[in-house]
């Protein structure tokens, strides 16, 4: 084979042009990375209290005390890092779910994982009495919960978070167990997700029926995804989980490519499809559950990021995974920065904006995809 290889390599250089083709994808990731950095810098500077570049740099070097330092480290940086980590995680979850379930509609939102979290949160707020007036105070300013919330509120928020996480996990486990026991096809898993999500929505409505007005307000408020809700500790948990997930799926990138080529092809290439699907779904769902538990329901980012990524660089998961992640981060940071600086007085939760941005953008991608 080597002699033939040599003879052909003189006449054509496909490998060279392929490497060039791959290099473009890497460059594009670099461009996205720089865009993310610039946007993050803008997001630190912009807001009700404008900061200069100089004062931001001084804050990063620890040379300033006072309001600028508090604004950067306690208010703006937490929400920027949370937006980047959450967007990254949602983009990753969407890309992996869409591959493993072979369905372009798969995402934490469409599979009922987010609704499971919302149900968990509603349960904690109403039945366990974790919300109510304390969580209601969040409505006045989302920022206060992360920076100067009292110990009572934090404890309540934790029980809401834990219940939300359990709700999301319950949804995931139900779907994964159904898929495992009944050896369900990927399409059936999506349908099960739809059924499960309406079950969770009904459960949330039922819980709300027995709730007081303040509790209902808290439940509804919790469902609006908001990246300004978490503190550094939660952001740390989220970021490190996201990092571990990214490493795991980076190691599995060839398996994901094989699975997206078809189950039989994947098996013939030595991939244990059932095991990969089970573990993969469980891991991304845990990631999505964490994000939803800490920040609330953020729709469409997980669905949209992989679609944009696929449109830009194709379906090769060696590149689709990192691109979906960074596009997710960019989308969420853009949405949060826009909602913070342009809309109203900076209290519009980002989840509302992602839904507004996401739905038309998704429809546009669908229509454009059909026309091709």
């Amino acid at each position, binding site marked *: 084979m080597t002699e033939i290889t040599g003879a052909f390599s003189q*006449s054509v250089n*496909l490998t060279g042009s392929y490497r060039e083709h791959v290099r473009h994808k890497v460059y594009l990731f670099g461009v996205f990375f720089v865009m993310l950095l610039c946007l993050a810098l803008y997001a630190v500077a912009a807001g009700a209290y404008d900061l200069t570049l100089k004062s931001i740099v001084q804050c990063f070097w620890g040379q300033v005390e006072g309001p600028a330092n508090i604004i950067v480290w306690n208010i703006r940086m937490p929400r920027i890092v949370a937006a980047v980590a959450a967007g990254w995680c949602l983009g990753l979850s969407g890309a992996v779910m869409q591959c493993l379930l072979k369905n372009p509609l798969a995402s934490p939102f469409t599979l009922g994982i987010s609704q499971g979290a919302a149900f968990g949160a509603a349960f904690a707020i109403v039945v366990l009495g974790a919300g109510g007036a304390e969580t209601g105070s969040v409505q006045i300013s989302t920022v206060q919960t992360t920076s100067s919330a009292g110990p009572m509120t934090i404890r309540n928020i934790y029980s809401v978070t834990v219940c939300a996480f359990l709700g999301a996990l319950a949804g995931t486990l139900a779907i994964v167990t159904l898929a495992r026991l009944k050896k369900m096809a990927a399409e059936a898993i999506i349908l099960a997700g739809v059924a499960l999500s309406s079950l969770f929505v009904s459960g949330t409505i039922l819980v709300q029926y027995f709730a007081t007005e303040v509790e209902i307000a808290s439940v509804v408020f919790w469902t609006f995804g908001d990246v300004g809700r978490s503190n550094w500790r939660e952001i740390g948990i989220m970021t490190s989980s996201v990092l571990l997930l990214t490493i795991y799926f980076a190691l599995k990138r060839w398996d994901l*490519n094989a699975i997206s080529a078809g189950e039989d*092809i994947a098996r013939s*290439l030595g991939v244990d499809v059932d095991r990969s699907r089970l573990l993969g779904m469980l891991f991304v769902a845990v990631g999505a559950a964490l994000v939803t538990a800490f920040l609330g329901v953020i729709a469409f980012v997980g669905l949209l990021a992989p679609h944009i990524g696929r449109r830009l660089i*194709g379906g090769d998961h060696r590149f689709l995974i990192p691109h979906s992640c960074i596009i997710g981060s960019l989308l969420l940071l853009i949405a949060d920065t826009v909602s913070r600086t342009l809309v109203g007085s900076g209290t519009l939760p980002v989840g509302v904006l992602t839904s507004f941005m996401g739905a038309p953008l998704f429809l546009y991608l669908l229509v454009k995809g059909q026309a091709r």
Partner: protein
Amino acid sequence: MILSVDAISFRYNSLPVLQDVTFQLPRGEILGVIGVNGAGKSTLLKCINKILRPKSGSVLVEGTDVLRLRGDAVARRIGYVPQRYSDDHVTVFDAVLLGRKPHIKWVATERDMRIVERLLVSMGLEDYALRPISTLSGGEAQKVIIARALAQEPKILLLDEPTSSLDLRNQLEVMNLVSNVVRTEGVSAVVAIHDLNLALRFADRFLILKDGAIHAMGPKEALSPEIIEEVYGVHSILRIVEGFPVIIPVHCCKSEAHEGGSK
């Protein structure tokens, strides 16, 4: 013998699909697997490379029982071309490079690249290398899938009805390609195929399945009008036209021979 299948049996739940299938295949030959729909052709192919796990029996490739090997070790010995494929969004080069997966540890090496390049050139796919598969015609796409299987550097190539969705020209091209690969690369191919005339032209020997068991087996002559009538319930005649054996179906027989197809 490069491939030795011994007493393979397989059931879907309690329904027996394959019963005691035993055959051998020498190096550099094409085995045509013939039978009605549902006779167990695809199942046999999937049992050979462990996509499905047979309930009993063994599959030896050059003396090694592949059913006892790990998935990637099987994949380095047996390449598989399924009826359906679905990675429309990737480029032709990426699709063929995926065939190197069983050999790739972390990143694709220069050797992996060269093998993909050689396959694309030898199949006349070099102009499409960086195009998504979705933009290719059925025949070209089928060649890409065969190239991917060959990129595994297999000893055995399994093809599940490789010509069923192709036009006349592409049918000939794809089968010529398989035939050339088998002759020049020293691999052997097991081809499940419905088109009896293509099978007669390209296969060196036949395995005729009926109701999951071997009905007949042997060199080209095994596919006689009598056997066709027994298996398909169709009366046919065999003629030699310009040196090519041709089966001409005449009429359906009033027998129950076709019952196997109702599964």
